[in-house]
Structures are given as C-alpha cells and as structure tokens.
C-alpha cells in the first residue's frame, strides 16, 4: 500500500496545524502558571475533550481494538464498568479538592494533605512511570508504522534502509511534540489534544461505518462471531465461563473500582487537564463532559477489532473458541493484501515462525487488527486521514505524559528537593528543559523497549504495583480526616509490596513463571492474565487501605484547621442551588451513570 499525494498533503496539513497551535499558545505563555497550569484559563468543553484525548494514546486505540478482537464486546467493561463511574466520581467528589486546594499537581496535593515523604514517593514513581509510558507509546507507534509498510516506497526512493523508518517515526513525532510543548506548555498540549480528538473521531468513525456495512451491521457481527463475543455480561457468574477469565466480583472490584478509579481519579496526567480549567465549576464539569462522550468510545475503538476478527474468520480462530466462518488468515503478513484475512498470525521475532501458545496453537497478532482494517478499507485520501488519526492518537498520548512529567519534575522534585525559592522565570526555564529531557529519556525508553523483548511486560507490571494502591491513599486522604502522613506512606509501601507478593505467588494459565508471575512460587493459577491483574490490584489496594487506617489510628492526627479545603468533612459544601440542572455536576453525573447502565443492559 503506497501513499498518494493527497495522503501526504493531509499528514503535512496536520503537522503544520499542530505546530501552529503550539506557536499560538506560546504567545500567551509568559509565566510558570501559564506553562504548567495553562494559566487556569481553559473552558470546560476544551478541558473535557483534552481529558479524553490525553488517554487516547497507542494503548487505547490499538490496544482496545486488539482486545475487541480477542475478547469481543466484553472489552467495553473498561468503559461502562471502569472509566465512566470513575470519571463521574472524580467530577462530583474529588475535583473540588484538587482544584480548590490550589495544588499544582497531584503529588503536591499529597504534601498538603499528608507530608513530604508521601509526596516524594508519589512524585518519583510517577515521574519514572510517565517517561517509560511515553517511551512505550513511542516504540509502539514506530513499530506499527514500520510494520504497516506504508513508508517503504518513499524510503526506497530516497535510498534509505527500511530500518530507518523506525528511527524516523520516533524522531519526527518526538520533535513535533517537543516543539509544541516547549513553546506552548500545557496550553499548547491541551489545545492540540482537542484538535487530535476530532481527528481521531474523523479517522475512525468511517472505518467503523464501512466495516459494519461489510459484515452486515451489528446483527451480522453477532452471526459471524457468536454470542460469546457480542454479549458483555454472558458467563460472568464464573471465571471459567467467559472469555476474560474473571468473575463479576473480580471485574467490578478489580477493574471497576481499584484500577479504573486509581487511574481516572489519581493519575496526574489525566487530572492535570481538569486542574487547568478556568473555574471550579469548569473543573468539576470537565470529567463529566469527558464521560458523556467517552461512554460511546467502545463503538469507535473496540468495534474495529471485532469487525477485523469477523472478516478474518478463520478455522484457527474457531479453534480458539472464536468465530464461525472460514476463510484464510494472513500468515505473517502485515499487509492484508497478501490474503483474505485481516488479522495476521503473530510471528516470533527470534525465529521468524508463527508464535505458538502453551497449547501449541498459533496465535493471532491482535495488535494489527485495527491498523490492517484501515489499510484494507480506506482508499487513497481516506488512508491519509486514517494514518493522521493514528499519528494524532500517539502524539496526544505522548504529550499527556510529557506535560505531566515536566510539572511533577519541576514542582515536586526540583523545587522541593534541589532548589527552593527560585524565581518563577527560573522554574519556567527548568520546565522547558524538563520537557526536552523528558522527551529524550522517552526516546531512550523506546529504544530500550525495542532491544529487550520482556521489558514492556516488566514495565507494565511495575505500573500495576505502583498505581493500584495510590487510589486508597487519595480516597482516605480526601474522605477521612483521621488519616495521617505516616499512615499514608506506610500504607503505600505495604500496598506496593502486597502487589509484588501476590504477583510472585500467582500465575496465569498457560504462562511460564517469571515476568508473568510465580517468581517466588506458584500458589494459585488464574484462568487469564487479566484475572491475575485485577486480583493483584484488589490485594494491593486492600492492603494499602487497611494498613493506612491501622497506622493512622496509632499516630498523631493532623490539626483540623490545616485540613480545611483538603478533606470532605472539613470543607464547606459547594452550593448548587442557583445552578441550572445541566450545569449541576450531581445531576449530570447521575444522567451519565444511567447512560452507562443502559449501555450495559443493551449489550448484556
């Protein structure tokens, strides 16, 4: 598949607009507050779309399509059970403390509420995680662009080796993101995220429409894939009777509560968008606006994977408990033109042969489901738009990490531990430098990921250890005035250790002990990796929650006057008596939750 002139023109237009928006934002970026907090001047609808977009990186767009192909519509649990209730919770209950405390970051809130060591623990782990996360996103993008072979011909014309496509993808995306964040700071990132949001929708909506036409609509998908793929709640009573390998409790508690609330309510990369809003009312509305749109995203990012599987429809997939029809699968081919199938077989990079699972069955490369569907159905012109949408998603995800990193580095590490009391101009300079260094480190992480097969698994694992307990710390911090700094810090440490311990004692079915778990000894086998992840999160969160309470009860409480504006019971309630119903966070939150329940019922 070769790109035409119009495809190139669309890609070039996108890059030009992204840089122009960065420069426009730069004209209004004169202080540290402008650079790190966008001057707290962002309207609610802009912050709301950026809130979604910062999460729409490679893992979301490609990963959700891959999970759609692997697990079917049950993947929508990540939205209808996970993200939506968490976004409503942060908007209705938590945002008033983030925004009202005037903290400049989530770790800084922890310092105000607890103490320096709790902030330090959170700031250092978060800064490292954002670098690796951004690097993984960069690696995934570059690998995908190389695998799709869309840039092979121009590189041949220029006499450059194909391997350079990987380097070029990393360098171009890094330079563009660096340019618009260095110049425009958080404002440059947020305004670009809104543009990127619309481009992602514009690129993927016609793909879903064309794909559904091809398979005969939702009914056609149901016929092609069968009920296991098209019912989200089918067989959820027991872990062994559904494709996710988790029961309803593990799903609701592990994914719906711990992991989703942990991510959407405490991850600074997300929360930072709402903290940049122009008022408390806008900050609270930001996650609710995002949730009301986000609940329809399964149709945009999961359906392409399901459609790709229905169109692949192979005997192999049937053997995996998959769809019913029969044509062929593209063996090892990234370009689907080589066969009738959309999803190719996964190839072992060491041997060049199809990768086999523990039962000796060949595996499908689900990560290529959405990109290959795009190559299959988009003609020239639309192909440029689709690739632009992919690029936009990668850049928005990377920019989210970079802006969160430069803020936490500057305020929570540099200002807190290296140089206190410098001028605002000095911290602005450090923030810009941190942007450049953060992107360089991300590129390093991307190359690290390309050199070591297991490094991505390992990093994802560490994320799970660190992320899961933090929600217990924030929850107790905001809603229990008796929680103390010692309690929070020891709780966080114990929660992280509990995650590591649980992982070291359990293993998903069919895996070999090591990075997948069981590295201490195998005490329990889970039906799937997802089940192991959910239960690791549950153990970790529960440990942090219980230990924080126990240690807090035996340590000296904070003075209540110091906690006003930081803890629910000590903070004056926001009056919403004169607010119209559509602007009232509680009313909007209830409507969004009802919407999520209705979607769960429709696709049960």
């Amino acid at each position: 598949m070769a790109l035409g002139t119009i495809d190139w023109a669309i890609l070039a237009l996108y890059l030009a607009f992204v840089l122009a928006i960065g420069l426009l934002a730069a004209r209004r970026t004169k202080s540290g507050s402008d650079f790190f907090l966008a001057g707290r001047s962002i309207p609610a609808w802009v912050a709301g779309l950026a809130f979604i977009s910062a999460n729409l990186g490679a893992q979301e767009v490609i990963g959700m399509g891959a999970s759609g192909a692997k697990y079917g519509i049950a993947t929508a649990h990540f939205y209808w059970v996970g993200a939506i209730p968490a976004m409503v919770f942060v908007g209705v209950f938590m945002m008033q403390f983030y925004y009202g405390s005037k903290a400049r970051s989530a770790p800084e809130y922890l310092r105000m509420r607890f103490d320096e060591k709790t902030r330090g623990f959170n700031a250092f782990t978060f800064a490292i995680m954002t670098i690796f996360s951004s690097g993984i996103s960069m690696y995934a993008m570059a690998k995908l662009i190389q695998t799709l072979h869309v840039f092979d011909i121009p590189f041949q014309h220029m006499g450059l080796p194909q391997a350079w496509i990987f380097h070029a993808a990393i360098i171009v995306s890094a330079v563009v993101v660096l340019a618009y964040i260095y110049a425009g700071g958080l404002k440059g990132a947020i305004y670009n995220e809104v543009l990127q949001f619309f481009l992602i929708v514009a690129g993927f909506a016609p793909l879903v429409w064309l794909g559904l036409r091809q398979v005969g609509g939702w009914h056609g998908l149901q016929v092609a894939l069968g009920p296991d793929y098209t019912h989200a709640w089918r067989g959820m009573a027991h872990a062994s009777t559904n494709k996710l390998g988790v029961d309803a409790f593990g799903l609701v508690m592990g994914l719906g509560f711990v992991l989703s609330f942990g991510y959407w309510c405490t991850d600074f990369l997300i929360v930072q968008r709402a903290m940049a809003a122009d008022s408390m009312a806008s900050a609270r509305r930001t996650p609710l606006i995002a949730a009301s749109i986000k609940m329809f995203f399964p149709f945009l990012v999961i359906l392409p994977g399901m459609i790709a599987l229905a169109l692949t429809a192979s005997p192999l997939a049937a053997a995996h408990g998959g769809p019913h029809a029969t044509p062929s699968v593209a063996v090892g081919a990234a370009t689907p033109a080589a066969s009738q199938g959309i999803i190719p077989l996964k190839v072992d990079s060491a041997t060049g042969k199809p990768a086999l699972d523990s039962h000796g069955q060949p595996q499908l490369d689900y990560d290529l489901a959405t990109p290959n569907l795009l190559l299959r159905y988009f003609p020239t012109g639309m192909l440029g738009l689709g690739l632009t949408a992919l690029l936009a998603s990668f850049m928005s995800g990377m920019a989210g990490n970079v802006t969160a990193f430069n803020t936490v580095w500057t305020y929570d590490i540099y200002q807190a531990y290296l140089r206190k009391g410098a001028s605002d101009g000095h911290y602005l300079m450090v923030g810009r430098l941190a942007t450049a260094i953060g992107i360089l480190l991300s590129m390093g992480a991307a190359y690290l990921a390309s050199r070591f097969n297991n490094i991505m698994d390992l990093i994802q694992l560490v994320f799970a250890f660190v992320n899961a307990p933090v929600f217990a710390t924030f929850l107790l911090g905001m809603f229990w005035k008796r929680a103390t700094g010692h309690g929070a810090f020891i709780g966080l440490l114990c929660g992280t250790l509990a995650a590591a311990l649980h992982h070291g004692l359990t293993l998903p079915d069919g895996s070999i002990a090591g990075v997948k778990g069981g590295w201490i000894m195998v005490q329990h086998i889970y039906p799937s990796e997802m089940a192991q992840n959910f239960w690791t999160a549950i153990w970790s969160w529960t440990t942090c929650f219980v230990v924080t309470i126990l240690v807090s009860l035996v340590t000296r409480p904070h003075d209540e006057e110091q906690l006003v504006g930081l803890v629910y019971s000590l903070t004056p309630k926001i009056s919403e008596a004169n607010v119209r119903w559509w602007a009232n966070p509680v009313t909007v939150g209830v409507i969004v939750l009802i919407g999520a329940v209705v979607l769960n019922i429709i696709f049960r």
Partner: protein
Amino acid sequence: MTFDIRLPIGLLFLAIGALLVGLGLTADAASLRTADLGVNIDLAWGGFLAAFGLAMIGLTALAKRGAGR
C-alpha cells in the same frame, strides 16, 4: 484572552474535507475502491468533514460577534 480553538479545527477540517471531495470527484473508481465499498467514501466523508469545518468556523464567528457586543 484565550484563542478560540474552533477556528484552527474548522480550517483544518475544511481543508482536509476539500482535498477529499476534490479527490472523490476526480480520481478513478478503482483507486477510490467504490465497487469494493459500494460508496465513494472520499467524496461522502470529505463533504461531511468540510461541512463540519464550516460549522466550526461559523461558531467562532458567532462567538466573536457575541463578544464584540
């Protein structure tokens, strides 16, 4: 004062839409895969994107006029 992001979004979508419509009207059916897909997707989606771009530009103009009063 903050700038209105709807203007660059409108301009970009109008430009992309115009490119797709132009291609949809001039390219041959084989390169547009109209037989395969049963629709000239470049023309149809390009038209929609151009209309969306115009609407965003219109909203920006309306907001500017409202602020000027």
